[in-house]
């Protein structure tokens, strides 16, 4: 059962080959069996079986949603009423939200089953899942390596078949990079397409939730549920949601692909470069035309991102003060002691580093030089993309400069770690949608192809991804030991 797609599982449920309870139990058993991967922070066994039972009673109904009774899992950044939402931090190890994130509400409305809450870098700050308070997550393709981050638990769980699909969030590459490193399919939607309400904020102007699955076809199904305007999120966009599955089989004849030359510099690993090249050739065979384009300000993306994201996070994380919820130090001597010890004890090193960077960048006398300058760079980068996307339909390139690296390899070198997002960060600054597709292996580790589209072109991106997956089987590969 665990190798089936959502569409296949939905058929199986309706054909009564198995019930949602049985299906859910099968996944729960697998989660237990492979718990060393450390994908889940919370396994919501009881809750999942209850949901499955309810779903079974709904399945007979003609208008039951496609996701009815399908077990999926949620990144532990989405607030779930009554079930711990830790955001990968000691700070929220005791936090149980009194409300559901809008995304969770939408999955509940479709009667999907939630297996549990997935591991992640602390407050989504990281590219390897190693900053999690709950420990590193292993990549099933090589358990000595990281799954990427911050949605590392989501990517690893999907690759290891511990869920059929999951949610992720992407602030600078947190859906695409782990998808790439774990050989699965991930979509980072246009900023504003998916509600951020109840999705714990890291950097509000960059954060965007999206689906992660084995195939584009499954990602389209999740996206259908997740997308849409939300009155509770002022930055969500009031715009009709297309049918993401309807156009999956559209032809790619005449598709114009742009290859940004900045994505293919000499720094790019040769094996990755050749995997990307083969993928582009597949697209040519499908009728696409390819031309080189340029994003001249790409090199400014990482510094601009680390100013903006850190500035926003420094304010977003101020609410964790030990006063109303979350970790509080023992017997504080006074107010200042309460603040400094509660925060000092419960935030990890990477989170502290970013709060400090952001606080510095916003300080009097530095604001113009850092924050304002970074916003100007952000505009330039957006303009680069607009220019490029006026010439072609989509841009393609690698997701990550490397395949999965060893656990512990980069933890002492934050700059090296930040460079892991060199190809993904600019897309968040521009607010564009982008996907990561499995497109081969380098040194027996998965390589991801990145496809970047214009605003609100998620349907087209899914179509482009799906057509590739009709002529390749990279997305169907299973890591050894997890068949």
């Amino acid at each position, binding site marked *: 059962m665990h190798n089936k797609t959502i569409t296949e599982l939905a058929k199986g449920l309706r054909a009564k080959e198995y019930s949602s309870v049985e299906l859910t139990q099968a996944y729960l058993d697998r989660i237990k069996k492979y718990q060393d991967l450390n994908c889940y922070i919370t396994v919501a066994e009881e809750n999942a079986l209850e949901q499955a039972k309810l779903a079974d009673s709904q399945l007979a109904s003609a208008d039951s949603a496609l996701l009815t009774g399908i077990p999926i899992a949620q990144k532990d950044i*989405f*607030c779930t009423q009554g079930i711990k*939402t830790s*955001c990968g931090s000691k700070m*929220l190890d005791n*936090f149980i*939200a*009194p*409300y559901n*994130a809008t995304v969770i509400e939408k999955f509940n409305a479709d009667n999907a089953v939630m297996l549990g809450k997935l591991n992640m870098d602390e407050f989504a700050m990281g590219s390897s899942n190693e900053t999690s308070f709950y420990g590193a997550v292993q990549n099933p393709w090589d358990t000595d390596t990281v799954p990427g981050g911050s949605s590392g638990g989501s990517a690893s769980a999907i690759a290891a078949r511990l869920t059929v699909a999951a949610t992720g969030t992407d602030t600078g590459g947190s859906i695409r990079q782990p998808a790439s490193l774990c050989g699965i399919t991930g979509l980072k939607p246009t900023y504003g397409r998916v509600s*951020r*309400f*109840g*999705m*714990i*904020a890291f*950097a*509000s*102007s960059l954060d965007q939730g999206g689906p992660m699955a084995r195939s584009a076809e499954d990602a389209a199904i999740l996206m259908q549920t997740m997308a849409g305007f939300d*009155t*509770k*999120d*002022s*930055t969500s966009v009031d715009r009709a949601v297309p049918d993401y599955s309807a156009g999956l089989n559209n032809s790619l004849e005449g598709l114009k692909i742009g290859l940004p030359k900045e994505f293919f510099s000499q720094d790019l690993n040769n094996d990755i470069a050749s995997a990307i090249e083969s993928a582009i050739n597949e697209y040519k065979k499908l009728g696409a035309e390819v031309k080189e384009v340029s994003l001249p300000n790409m090199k400014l993306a990482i510094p601009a991102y680390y100013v903006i994201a850190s*500035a*926003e996070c*420094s*304010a977003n*994380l*101020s*609410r*964790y*003060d030990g*006063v*109303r*919820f979350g970790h509080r130090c023992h017997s504080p001597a006074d*107010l200042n002691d309460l*603040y400094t010890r509660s925060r000092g004890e419960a935030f990890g090193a990477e989170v502290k580093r970013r709060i400090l960077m952001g*606080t510095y960048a*916003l*300080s*009097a006398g530095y*604001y113009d030089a850092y*924050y304002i300058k970074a916003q100007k760079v952000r505009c330039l980068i957006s303009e680069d993309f607009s220019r490029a996307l006026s010439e072609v339909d989509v841009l393609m390139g690698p997701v990550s400069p490397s395949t999965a690296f060893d656990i512990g390899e980069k933890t002492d070198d934050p700059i090296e770690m930040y460079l892991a997002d060199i190809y993904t960060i600019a897309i968040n600054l521009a607010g564009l949608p982008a996907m990561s597709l499995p497109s081969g292996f380098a040194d027996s580790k998965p390589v991801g192809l990145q496809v970047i589209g214009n605003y609100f072109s998620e349907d087209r991106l899914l179509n482009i991804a799906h057509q590739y997956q009709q002529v390749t089987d990279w997305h169907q590969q299973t890591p050894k030991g997890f068949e």
Partner: protein
Amino acid sequence: MEWETVIGLEIHAQMATKTKIFSAASTAYGAEPNTQACAVDLGLPGVLPVLNQEAVRMAVKFGMAIEAEVADYSVFARKNYFYPDLPKGYQISQMELPIVGIGHLDIEIDGETKRIGVTRAHLEEDAGKSLHEDFHGLTGIDLNRAGTPLLEIVSEPDMRSAKEAVAYMRKIHELVRYLEICDGNMQEGSFRCDANVSVRPKGQQEYGTRAELKNINSFKFVEKAINIEVERQIDLIESGGTVVQETRLYDADNNETRSMRSKEEANDYRYFPDPDLLPVEITDQLRAQVKADLPELPSVKKQRFMEQYGQDKETAATLTSSRQLADFYETVAKESGCTAKLCSNWVSVNFLGALNKANLEIAETPVNAERLAGLLKRIADNTISGKTAKQVFDSLWESDLTADEIIEQQGLKQITDSGAIEAIIDKIIADNPAQVKQYLSGKDKVFGFFVGQVMKASQGKANPAEVNKMLKDKLK
């Protein structure tokens, strides 16, 4: 040396919205602690602010009323600081691009009109309240007030005395209530003010170093706090010291200001645009709506009262001091059809006097405009005398009856029948020969005695004008 005082005010007016500025929680005052604070007000993880458009509309209304530039595009920013009653660790406020830009307001001071500049007015959320008593050495936090919409109105340093500052504050207070954007309740903290105070030698161009007096919540205290601070600064400079830029607190009990924190200790608030909120766009449609909705402003109304009703400046100012009172007056005038003088007198003297005595707001008046008009009609048509009218008014205040019903029940109808009055007069003259003699020998004062006797005999119901006229004839 002669010193000049320079004052600028920052007034915080709570916008009279039903719900908070970024959440759907109620803004009603006086609820049990933390019963009107939802997840957004508590700053729980994952929650997001959604701007209350009504607060924006009210700010625009204020901007239009002070003839200010109302921005097409304005931005909310985060003001970062840690405090237990500030749930998010930042306050959503506005820094660059406030909703309301440069405007002005005219005040009256010693019969002169003075224009006070308004630098800006911006929307922000209020913080919660820290309760330091009753928690055994701990501090209690009440977040009911957190997220309440405030309009911070910043003036230019245009005021030169505490008196001017109070006049300006009163004017803003009157205006926000006129516009119905703030209830103006100072006890409940709906209207409060910070004062920036400095002194300089008279004639000097540059401003002196200022101190900011925080959170003063009455007109009386504003005046006292400024005066005492000015005195402190002058004494300090004259004894060779220098004023430092700092925040000071006014202690009403000891009538002194005390240092709270110096500029060096001041927070770096690290303002930056709030990425959770889109920039606010003030559309032409909203402008048109607000404009159509704008009431006649106090200064315009006052001018009109003087012209239309022939009132003197003072009466017009009294009657237009609140929109409700002005409306009350105009209803009385319209319903009664009486002269402006009669209506003005009755509303500004008798009616207001009774309200003040009973310590009631106009909304709580037991005598509405229609009932008062009913009384004035009976004065105008001579059914009752002015003196009897006061008695009827007291009964109006105490009962639900109309003036006509009271006059009828209590038999207060004035005697205008000249035959009846003549009979009384004849009797009085016959009974008081000595007084008649005195009067006829030139003692004009005795005339008053006759009038009094006639009125007494008629139980006050004789028409005084008629009595006067007839007495004069009889006593020739």
